[in-house]
């Protein structure tokens, strides 16, 4: 996958996946920028990694868990939970009606 060229169509699809609204002019500029970036990082393909296992955790930690106990100190009051929201109603957060069904 050497520095494959990204089109404005691709960018629109990616922007949709990323839930970032972009205008057509923004799409044009972003297409160039992302394409340049992706081409540059594609250089990584030159590094041989055939028999290598990925590292997701540099700490080497395993089995970090917590006991099943209620932590009252962190539970927010309804007021605190809603405080920074732009639109609330009777203790709920409000959003425009969502048409799409849940995944």
């Amino acid at each position, binding site marked *: 996958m050497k520095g494959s060229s990204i089109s404005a169509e691709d960018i629109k699809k990616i922007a949709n*996946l990323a*839930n970032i609204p972009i205008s057509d002019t923004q799409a044009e500029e972003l297409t160039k920028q992302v394409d340049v970036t992706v081409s540059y990082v594609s250089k990584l393909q030159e590094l041989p990694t055939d028999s290598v296992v990925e590292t*997701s*955790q540099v*700490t080497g*930690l*395993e*089995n*970090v*868990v*917590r*006991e*099943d*106990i*209620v*932590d*009252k100190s*962190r*539970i*927010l*009051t*309804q007021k605190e*939970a*809603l405080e920074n929201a732009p639109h609330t*109603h*009777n*203790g*709920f*957060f*409000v*959003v*425009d*009606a*969502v048409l*799409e*069904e*849940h*995944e």
Partner: protein
Amino acid sequence: MNEYELVIGMEIHVELKTESGMFCGCKNDQSLDKKPNIYTCPVCLGLPGALPVPNKKAIDWTIMLGLALGSEISEVSKFDRKHYFYPDLPKGYQISQYDMPLCVGGFVDTSFGRVRLHRIHLEEDTGTLKHTTLDGKRVSLVDFNRSGTPLVEIVTEPDIHSSAQAIEFLKKLHQIVRFVGISDADMEKGSMRLEPNISVRVKGSTELPQYKVEVKNINSFKFAAAAIEYEFKRHVALLEDGKIPVQETRGWNEDKNATVSQRVKEGASDYRYFPEPDIPPLRFSKEYINNLKSKIPESAQEKAQRYINEYKLSKAQCVGVITTPEFSNIFELMVVEGTKTSGVTASDVANWLINKKSSMANLSPEEFITKLIEESKTVAVSDDELNKIIKSVLFENEKAVTDYKSGKETVIMFLVGKVRAQLKIDTARILSALKKELIS
């Protein structure tokens, strides 16, 4: 016309009844009437900077469920981020499991054949959405109380071939979940949710159909059967017409008694899974797994076997008392109490519980046994004693006697009641003795 058969794979979600959340210490309150957004914290509300820490009990319980279902427990497992955008998903991703789930395989046997399990994994639940109108505008109200609740996902292979098999499978699974003791699995309350993936093929074919339809919004076994039956007819009609049913998500509509199209799935969604960087992987030793295995409570089948052997109950009696783990525990407490007092057998206890369930189950074991003995004291009263009381009741209630003799037959129950107030014995016996006396 061809003969067709159903090909169904089920996806079942079970909310665990842990004390706290999957990745935070928020109260896991399963009651329905609470106020919105009262059990949230930076973690399950998706605030900036918050980090998840997994609930050990949720992990252990998932493994125990897997063991009870015959699954392989993965030696190494991890969490992954599953990305999509929806208002009830606060982080914009759900912490779930992708390619290294806690449990692989497993099965539930039904009278129609074995239903194999593909996998069982652990994830966090989302918040809930309610649709309404505010100031003339259609809006959705979001509540994050449920966000972060531990959720087990069970996926079957497409081994289900009829609605009857589906229901039997679901009932068995439901019972296993309840008896492992990890969830109330109440479909109406939403602690067990199911989505059948339905397709149809010509009978005798072994190939998987090229499409499948996912059905949501099913909140009872009855509706599951109805939805499956509806889809079967719908798919067959399309196939007979040379068409392939559209691959989509449909919702069960109770009022219409039909499924309704909700959304067309263009291929698989791109969830951009990657390993959750905030949570180190999990590794389970054989000792750890064996220890969990030893903690799995008795299954319904194991209980029944024990009751038959130890208590000499019949199979029917077992079905009557082994309804839920709680009820069978109450039964056993009653039996223990009863055996302290001679004469009360496990069979007696079973019969009383089965026949008078709602009024008796709330009593303490002592109260229950006392009441049972009291009401059984019928055998202690002689016929002479009974007739003496009957005579005095008839003497004191002349009008009733006259009414009865003049044709008002229902009055006899009033007289039965009067006798019974003095003698706690079987009403049938009183009734027949009374009638004898009244005729004479």
